[in-house]
């Protein structure tokens, strides 16, 4: 039984994650585990009232309360869950930062997929439900990254979203060092055949789960340049409303520069999934 963990600290910023979490739980037909992290313990009704959540809006849910270090609690509770949906910011909302300290600690320390919702999120909703319509999945051609993105793809097979795979080639950069790496073809003897063949192979290799579903509108795009810029431009031009990114799990100095920039500038929900190494 899959579960969605929604940690809330009672702040407006964290509450932004409520609707995406609820929608995701309904889409996956699973339980929404609302975790209230606060020093103040409220009964269920008071808690829901405080957050402005109507009971009748919830289908299958569990509400629990914990006090203590929020990041530690979320990480502990997430062990029993399949996805975490949370706000990038909480009570001490500093929107000048790409994400608050709790969100950063959580995404750095879990292999569970984390759907991050920013305070200024733009959600594409239909009938009070958030369902991705136009998804962007950047893929660097490394099998581990594609493998990490499977949980995101498992969500997408249940939607009718158009899915844009984006592979960004670059110069002055070595390709990922990993067995099975498949980047843009260096040789394109006959472009009239090469690109079709390469695109097909890329999708088969990295998104077999999506490629094998006829109802899924899967498109592969190739761009060249700075990865962060290309992702942001692409998302803007194509009005992507959900981005799933595999990453190596650290925001330390000089690491994850692409992700830092995408998180800072992009307002749609972003799912981060840490690559198992």
């Amino acid at each position, binding site marked *: 039984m899959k579960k969605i963990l929604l940690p809330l600290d009672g702040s407006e910023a964290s509450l932004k994650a409520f609707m995406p979490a609820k929608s995701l739980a309904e889409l996956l037909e699973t339980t929404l585990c609302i975790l209230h992290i606060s020093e103040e313990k409220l009964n269920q009704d008071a808690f829901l009232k405080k957050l402005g959540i109507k009971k009748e809006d919830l289908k299958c849910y569990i509400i629990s309360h914990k006090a203590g270090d929020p990041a530690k609690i979320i990480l502990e509770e997430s062990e029993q869950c399949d996805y975490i949906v949370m706000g990038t910011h909480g009570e001490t909302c500093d929107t000048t930062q790409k994400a608050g300290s709790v969100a950063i600690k959580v995404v750095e320390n879990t292999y569970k997929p984390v759907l991050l919702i920013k305070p200024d999120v733009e959600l594409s909703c239909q009938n009070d439900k958030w369902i991705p319509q136009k998804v962007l999945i950047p893929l660097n*051609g490394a*099998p581990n990254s594609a493998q990490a993105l499977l949980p995101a793809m498992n969500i997408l097979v249940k939607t009718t979203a158009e899915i844009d795979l984006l*592979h960004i*080639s*670059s*110069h*002055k*950069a*070595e*390709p990922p060092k990993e*067995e*099975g790496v*498949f*980047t*843009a*073809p*260096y*040789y*394109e*003897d*006959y*472009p*009239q*055949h*090469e*690109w*079709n*063949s*390469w*695109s097909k*192979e*890329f999708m*088969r*290799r*990295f998104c*077999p789960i999506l490629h*094998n579903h006829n109802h899924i509108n899967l498109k*592969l*795009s*190739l*761009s*060249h340049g700075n990865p962060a810029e290309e992702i942001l431009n692409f998302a803007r031009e194509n009005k992507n409303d959900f981005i799933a990114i595999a990453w190596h799990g650290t925001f330390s100095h000089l690491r994850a520069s692409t992700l830092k920039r995408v998180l800072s500038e992009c307002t749609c929900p972003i799912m981060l999934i840490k690559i198992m190494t």
Partner: protein
Amino acid sequence: MDIIFFDLNLSKFSVKPYYSLSEKSYLPVNERDIETLFSMGNGYIGARNSLEEFYPQSTPGTFLAGFYEKDIYNDFNILVKIPDWTSIKIFVEDEQLDLTKNETLFHRRYIDFNNGCVVREWQCADNLGRITGIKIIKFISVSNKHELGKCVLIKPENYTGNLKVLSGIDCNTADFNYLINQNLSIGSHASVQMKSKFSDKEFMMLQKSVFSCIDNILSPTPYPLSQERGQMVGEGASPPPLDTPKFKFELSSSIEFNYQTINNFGGSFEEWKWLAEAGKIYNIKSLTTIYNNMDTPNPKEAAQENFLELGNNFFESGAQKHVEKWLSRWNESVVKITGSECDQKYIDFALYHLIISGEFSGDRYSIPARNLSGEAYKGHVFWDTEMFLLPFFTYTKPEIARKLLLYRYNTLDGARQHAREEGFKGASFAWESTDTGREMTPSHVILPNGNVIYILSGQYENHISSDIAYAVWKYWQATEDMEFLVNYGAEILFETARFCESLISLEDDGIYHILTVIGPDEYHEKINDNAYTNYLVRHNLEIALQSFEFMENNYSEELLLLKKKISLKNSEVKNWKNYAGKIYSGFDEKTGLFEQFKGFYELEYVDLRRFEPRTAPMDIIFGSEKTKKSQVIKQADVLMFLYLFGENFSEDIVRKNYEFYESKTGHGSSLSPSIHSIIAARIGKIDEAYKYFIKNAKIDLNDEFGNSAGGIHIASLGGVWMSVVMGFAGMYPVDKGLIFNPKLPEEWESIEFSIKWKGQDLKVNLNKEEINFTLSGDKNIFVGLGNNNWKELESNKNYIGTRIQEIWNWKD
């Protein structure tokens, strides 16, 4: 008679196993690359080497040469995928053995270069701990083009239990957009008859098998095997028990089993069920025959008769003939180098694919750019065949070169029509050719970056006709095959010369120019006076004239008939003479450079080193418009004709042009590195030549550039042979004979190979200081060392050349 295929003393298979994959390196994402690398074929039929269980990650594919149909989505022909004959499923107590579910104790695949087959060894344990050893050997016969063999050996190692094997012809892999399954059932065979939905084409596949048990009567000698073998296995992997060379086996007299054939629209299979005893080895040998109505009036009867002819020992007979022929083909082609084991493997790998590409190719079909090993390029035939494969065949197996050229002859009508449609005379061969010779190049492509680019090669990349004429001439030069020249070659030369005539136009400067073409560097389209095209056109006119004069003097009656057939007038021939010397060359005597095309020097210079390392071609990095305005070159263009006509240019000229163009070449084509390797070797830049040799050899082996899954880059493998023989060994075939000017990489100690020249067999063995020739045959040939140092070699004698201070001289 036991033959080596199922003599379990399998050390014979391991003399030169090329590639091994332990279970650790089984990676689903790489599966389609492996299928390509280990593909099988004989030029008539080709098959990807999929794991026989057909996993979701696999793309099995069997292709029948010439079985083209019009694409239902586009206006060009594509090669249609037919059912796959390699399917084998093994069940232990009704549970299918599955590489992704069972514990893999050992797994590897390799190409057996000695026997021309592919081998898979697999040892797995199911969840009850039952260990099964499996060995599967497959081959496509180079002896009989219609025969395909597979042999599976199964050993329940620690259990006695019920085994089931399902082996047959899987139709689910075929392209049902174009094919209809006739669902034919023939007695104790797996059989599939399919026909085209859109044409009269049909084919028949028939699989017949024999089942046996081999008792292990001596206790096995424990592993390890030979040192050599052990090194090929992944670390920590244990060996398959089937593979122990000191076992002795005998055929058991009887075994009880249930057998049935299963036929449905998904395919036709043979099924065996039996109680398997621990330690025994069970063997199913299957031979599949395939016939189609393009070459046989009644494919069904022919497929059955094939088995009758082979008799009761059909598998042994078929396999034995294949092995014998393979050995002979391998020995004819082999190139041995000492000094680098790894480079030897690159060469062996190339030779394997070259042999399987060409054996039965030609006449009505040719070798597609990805051979019959994948769907990419739709089975289309490009200039790759004449420029990168013909040298190998012309100088090692001219019979195959002849047949490949006959394919062009047989598509002359399509080429004539193409020329007419484009407003030209003569014959304009298709840039992308299939069975008709009509142009099959798609008009446009949508790039993954969303841009639409129009493909102009079909209209403007006219050099292909002169490339084919060049290949005809080189074949004639190497073989003196009068019958071919008189009956076929001359017609190609005359018709392409006519086409050339209509390409050129006289300008005010009194010189003939060729406007609006595309040269080998496809980054620059619709250019004027491409040096490559102009040089090849000039050559085309010259050789057409020479062959006309030759026939006039020696085959006047045949010439008359040909002239009548193609309405060739003497005045046309006279014109060829006039044009040839007056075509603009782009050569500047002051600089020693050929300008790639008019205006090239004015384009923006780009320092390509600034973009390294990169994973994308330069036209993707720049976009096509910026690329067109720059001096970035896709592949060898000027250097290409300097390679083709090496004897016509001084080393100084070649060096100047190499130094000018090499730094501007982005190598956006896999055809580029091999030519750079040859040219660099010829001008003594051995380190660069070696660097390009390695770059080329690794194109598929490392799949560094992400497009091997769609099929082998057969031309780049032809380029491997060319780099060694025509680059490092420095062979230039010219009218008088063969010139050698070897320059070996530092790592290499020697190179040994054979060349067919004027019907004679010349064995060449060279090192950095000495070159040995042994001529076999019945007539003398001329061999030159370095510059103009000719010697007439007599047959059955040895000759030695030595190098003293960079100069090669004959040793008396």
